């Protein structure tokens, strides 16, 4: 699965000046109540907790305080070739910041080595304007520039890629779907049928091992009509999301209702699954494209009132 969002950060007064300075190819720290200079700057003093307002320029060179070596960089890290992660105390600062040192090979890294900032080609007012640090000896860092508009917001895209490992019960349920079946499980203690199956009854706390195949028709217990669009939405609105209580199940599942106008959907409506063409089936609940009215008379309220 993959999820991601471009988060927008409002910076407040201190970090706004820090980011604006980066766009100018300058690094600012701030002076704390005890006289120490923190770089990057802090918004509040770690000793007195008071707001900090005195920003001072530090760097662009500094000293490696300690370091480690990374042979295989990951996506999104400052460099795509082996580099050193170092705590770097910039000249004029009393604290160290973590950054990458483009030293080439591990034997070029040492504690106490002198490094200087390497600026990104086009600074924009973002922490990534500091591309990395490099050993002093080559060309001097690019010169500061002026005339930069104040930076008050930064965007930080964040992406997560992950594998969902299915439980034994989820796996059986998803494999059943690939064969056009709906597999639930019955609790041996209370007799309630759960679909999708969970492997344990949340009420009784006992394992559920009895599989139950359920029909692909049921009753709409309750529903809403989604009229509102939002980022990441998979289905264009308006659409009806209903709780469908499959015949023989004790818990409803959420699904789409199509095949009628949204204002014709009602509590108690009988519905049947509409499957996608068999050649499109996979191990996914989306094999059922939607539910549609079955044409049967509505179920009486009392028949599903305990399953709302």
């Amino acid at each position, binding site marked *: 699965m993959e999820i991601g969002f471009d*988060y927008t950060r409002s910076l407040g007064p201190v970090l706004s000046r820090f980011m604006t300075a980066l766009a100018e190819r300058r690094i600012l720290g701030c002076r704390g109540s005890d006289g120490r200079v923190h770089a990057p700057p802090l918004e509040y003093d770690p000793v007195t907790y008071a707001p900090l307002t005195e920003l001072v320029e530090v760097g662009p060179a500094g000293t490696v305080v300690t370091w480690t070596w990374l042979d295989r960089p990951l996506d999104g890290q400052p460099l795509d070739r082996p580099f050193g992660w170092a705590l770097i105390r910039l000249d004029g600062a009393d604290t160290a910041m973590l950054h990458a040192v483009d030293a080439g090979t591990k034997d070029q890294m040492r504690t106490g080595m002198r490094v200087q900032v390497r600026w990104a080609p086009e600074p924009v007012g973002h922490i990534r304007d500091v591309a990395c640090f490099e050993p002093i000896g080559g060309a001097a860092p690019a010169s500061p520039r002026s005339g930069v508009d104040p930076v008050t917001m930064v965007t930080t895209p964040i992406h997560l890629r992950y594998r969902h490992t299915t439980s034994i019960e989820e796996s059986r349920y998803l494999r059943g779907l690939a064969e056009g079946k709906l597999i639930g499980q019955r609790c041996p203690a209370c007799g309630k049928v759960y679909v999708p199956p969970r492997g344990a009854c949340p009420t009784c706390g006992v394992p559920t091992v009895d599989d139950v195949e359920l029909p692909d028709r049921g009753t709409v217990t309750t529903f809403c009509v989604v009229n509102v669009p939002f980022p990441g939405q998979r289905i264009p609105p308006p659409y009806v999301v209903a709780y469908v209580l499959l015949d023989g199940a004790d818990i409803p599942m959420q699904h789409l209702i199509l095949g009628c106008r949204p204002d014709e959907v009602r509590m108690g409506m009988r519905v049947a699954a509409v499957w996608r063409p068999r050649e499109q089936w996979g191990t996914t609940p989306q094999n059922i494209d939607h539910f549609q009215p079955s044409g049967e008379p509505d179920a009486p309220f009392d028949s599903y009132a305990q399953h709302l």
Partner: protein
Amino acid sequence: MNRAAVLGTGQTEHRTRRTDVSMAGLCREAIDRALADAGTDWSDVDAVVLGKAPDLFEGVMMPELFLADALGATGRPLLRVHTAGSVGGSTAIVASQLVQAGVHRRVLAVAFEKQSESNAMWALSIQPPFTMPVGAGAGGYFAPHIRSYIRRSGAPPHVGAMVAVKDRRNGALNPYAHLRQPDITLESVNASPMLWDPIRYDETCPSSDGACAIVIGDEAAAEASDRQVAWIHATAMRTEPTYFAGKDHVNPRAGYEASRALWRAAGIIDPLEQIDAAEIYVPFSWFEPMWLENLGFAAPGEGWKLTEAGETGIDGALPVNPSGGVMCSNPIGASGLLRFAEAAMQVMGRAGEHQVEGARTALGHAYGGGSQFFAMWVVGTAPV
């Protein structure tokens, strides 16, 4: 258990986007006001408790790490509380228990959300691969249950709009409220777009940036205060699974049991008679009558009658959400703490224009998850 009291409260000006501050600055706006209201300073704070809703809302894992300096946590214990939308309430309760247990004398509780950094509907609609991708945020989740409530109670359709009008007009009396709509009417609510049928736009909470903070002290700290404090009479929390066969989303058992435990611990026999003001977590207007029933202010199916009769208005028998409530300001993680703080402000006599006259005993309430976590407290002008 030792006595504990709220010594002071603070909150931010809640807005759609507080781009003038960082998350740290947002928290400090509330904290600095709470310390000032409590007449105390950092030297008196023994521990800090932070609450906020899921990290995906801002995309910062464990924000308590980078916020430690701003929260004044350096050199002190810092705890993070995490119970979805009810977290603000749980945060206040954890802080009060640290005092009641005699561990600390004064504890700062803080909760915040900066919803403008992300999109909560997106964050709440990410589903695992074994369910259909039909989630549509909190509104999509709760709308079917509101439909169930209307069907079960036979409530007339205008009750939801009545709550919206009352809360938004109350919010107009609250200088911190995000939405302040003194001119809202039943007609304008009914004319607003249907978002998640049966929930209309005007029957929905806003998405807010905001924070809230309170200072809780022990009996000696409370007695040393030269201002009125809010004595904590009782607290209660209960949990249930989001989904199980037989789950009652309209009248959740965890909320029912928490409230009965709360009334018992506070010595309250008739909550409708004995509670002077209630700040109840109502993110969609229909939740007012539902929670009135769940909390025992009305019998099942009867809550809407209190609302319809105007009894939940600021001069009614049970003023509900005189601050405007979640319907006017919804910085999610802070929304529960705001309910608890506003209850305290009522019994401290510091609620300003939305003060309920003569309020001596008040309820603060929060819920979160899929009606899964419940947190509540009763505070009073006098100790019990």
